[in-house]
């Protein structure tokens, strides 16, 4: 879909969050001099097209106790990768889950799944759970723990400079 200039104004106005009032879309409309029903219709259209994944609250998984995470990686048989990837992605302790190309010979893994838990031990237990689910379709797997954030910059909106 094409996100037009008015859509961009809505995204920019809400980039740091929705206004915390009982009628947040009405308030966004007030900021942008747009009727509330147009704000809602535009956000709905962007959500239907996948530009907006959802309008929601983001729990801080660190402060809520999920302090440990690891990037688990799996070498899945190609003909089963789509189906099994969807099953792994549906697990409640898996956040980002992607199929990616292998980089042979350096890297045999084609499924990446970020696992979350309260501790390193819990993450390892989740990894065993995933391994049991994948069973014989998985030839090998590994998990990479991050030791340091080297850079973290906010994603810029394309066309925003």
């Amino acid at each position, binding site marked *: 879909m094409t996100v037009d200039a008015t859509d961009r104004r809505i995204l920019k106005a809400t980039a740091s969050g929705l206004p*915390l009032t009982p009628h947040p879309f009405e308030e966004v409309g007030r900021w942008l001099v747009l009727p509330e029903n147009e704000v809602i219709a535009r956000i709905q259209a962007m959500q239907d097209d*996948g530009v907006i994944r959802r309008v929601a609250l983001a729990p801080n998984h660190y402060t809520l106790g999920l302090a440990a995470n690891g990037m688990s990686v799996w070498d899945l048989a190609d003909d089963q990768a789509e189906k099994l990837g969807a099953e792994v*992605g549906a697990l409640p302790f898996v956040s980002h889950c992607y*199929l990616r190309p292998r980089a042979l010979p350096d*890297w045999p893994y084609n499924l990446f799944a970020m696992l*979350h838990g309260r501790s390193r031990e819990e993450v390892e237990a989740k990894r065993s759970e995933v391994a049991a689910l994948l069973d014989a379709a998985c030839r090998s797997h590994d998990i990479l723990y*991050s030791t340091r*954030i080297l850079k973290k910059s906010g994603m810029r909106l394309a066309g925003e400079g």
Partner: protein
Amino acid sequence: MRQTLPPDALDATDRLLINRLQDGLPLTHAPFAPVAQEAGISETEVVDRIAHLREIGAITRFGPFLDAEAMGGAFCLCALSVPPDRFDEVMTLVNAHPEVAHNYERQHRLNMWFVLACERPEEIAEAAGRIERETGLKVLRFPKRHEFFIGFRVEA
């Protein structure tokens, strides 16, 4: 903020709000009405509690979540195997590129993992090529072929 909150920082109503509102908000004139009714509180108290949860760091954001790619950008996860004695030098070279959105050190032979974020797909290969020339290291590229984005929930 990465410190775990004490267990009494949240009451049952706070937990209900976190558990319900992470799945998405109805796009209506009164989007908090359903959860307010379920919790037995007013919509004003719902928004006041959300503000408080943000203040104490129990939530990071409340609003629209964008699919950056659907907005027209191009992204690629990349990895480098950096000799330990060159780690800081390579980190400085990599981080200097504005296309590098984030960069993590990980425990593996491939010990540096970063995401390239560009406006157009062809710029990914160009940026990776520049990093290879500057560092003399092979940049492994892992573009996403399929994303599975369904299940993750943080039970409060």
